[in-house]
């Protein structure tokens, strides 16, 4: 018995005990100590304050309110950086496509069956993270990357030709990505355009009513807070991320022999 085996065994046991204990402990009540409560109160004063909507984002989830409302332009440029990376990847792999005719059978039936059970669960978990991003921890990028992991799992288990046959070709994924980014841009200037057409004043990335602007995004859905732009931003961002990350992974998964014929070129002396 080697030393590394012992170390691995002890570490894994400790981690399993810790995770199980943490689940019980976290389920019994909040981990935070009482001395930290005033900090949370001061944040919630600006993120969820229905009595004074002028200074509030009307979202109980402080992180999403800060990321998409207080510093929305910053997050928009972060999304653009990811988009530029995807554009670079697409430019590098230009001309490459999923070859038809070479039927790949994917992995064994055991892996396929367990993926059929697990992948929908991951998709639903990612979708709930994205749709409830303004109410609980989570958000567009988190939900989108969860769903992208499920898509890549399907692509590896059932082969990339399977996804292509189901209609998710490379250009479709790029279109999904662009539609998500376009939706973010439209939501960010929606109130500005509305104010231009109807008169009055508004701002870029405006969420609720402000000091000298009476326009506001919808803040309640029946009896739940909607957070105005936050819900739409999360939705669009998750669509953009699922398209972009799946496209990147599928491009990297393309077989090298087929790629050489397209992008290899000739050896230069």
């Amino acid at each position, binding site marked *: 018995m080697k030393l590394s085996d012992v170390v691995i065994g002890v*570490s894994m046991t400790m981690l399993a005990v810790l995770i199980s204990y943490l689940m019980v402990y976290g389920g019994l009540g909040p981990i935070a100590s009482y001395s930290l409560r005033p900090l949370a109160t001061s944040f919630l004063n600006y993120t969820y304050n229905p009595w004074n909507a002028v200074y509030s984002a009307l979202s109980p989830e402080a992180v999403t309110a800060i990321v998409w409302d207080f510093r929305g332009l910053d997050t928009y440029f972060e999304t653009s950086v990811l988009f530029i990376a995807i554009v670079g990847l697409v430019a590098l792999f230009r001309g490459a496509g999923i070859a038809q005719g070479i039927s790949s059978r994917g992995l064994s039936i055991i892996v396929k069956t367990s993926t059929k059970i697990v992948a929908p669960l991951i998709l639903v978990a990612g979708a709930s993270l994205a749709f409830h991003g303004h109410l609980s921890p989570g958000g567009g990028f*988190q939900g989108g990357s*969860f769903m992208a992991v499920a898509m*890549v799992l399907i692509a590896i288990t059932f082969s990339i030709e399977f996804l292509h046959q189901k209609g998710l070709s490379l250009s479709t994924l790029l279109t999904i990505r662009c539609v998500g980014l376009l939706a973010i841009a439209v939501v960010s200037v929606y109130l500005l355009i509305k104010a231009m057409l109807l008169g009055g004043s508004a701002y870029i990335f405006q969420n609720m009513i402000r000091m000298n602007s009476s326009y506001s995004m919808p803040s309640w859905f029946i009896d739940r807070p909607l957070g105005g732009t936050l819900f739409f931003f999360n939705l669009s961002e998750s669509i953009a991320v699922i398209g972009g990350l799946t496209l990147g992974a599928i491009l990297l998964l393309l077989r090298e022999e087929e790629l050489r014929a397209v992008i290899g070129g000739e050896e230069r002396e």
Partner: protein
Amino acid sequence: MPMNELLPAIMAFVTALVSIVATWLAVQEKDLLAAVLFSALQSTCYALIYYLLMAPDIVLVYLPVSVGILPLITVILVKKTERYEE
């Protein structure tokens, strides 16, 4: 200090120790596929520490990126090059 407030700090300390072990194993391992798995174990420990430091949003970003996408890209890289380090 009451035990109730000290406990998360102790748990974060033990998790950090486990992550150091995982990092050491990932660096030592000659089989690169196993090294990717050890790296994912280290990421899991970090996610646990983020949870103990009360940053659930970071946990939710960190999990799919470091346990899902980063090992995926590394495994593709290993598949297209060589599996064993010399």
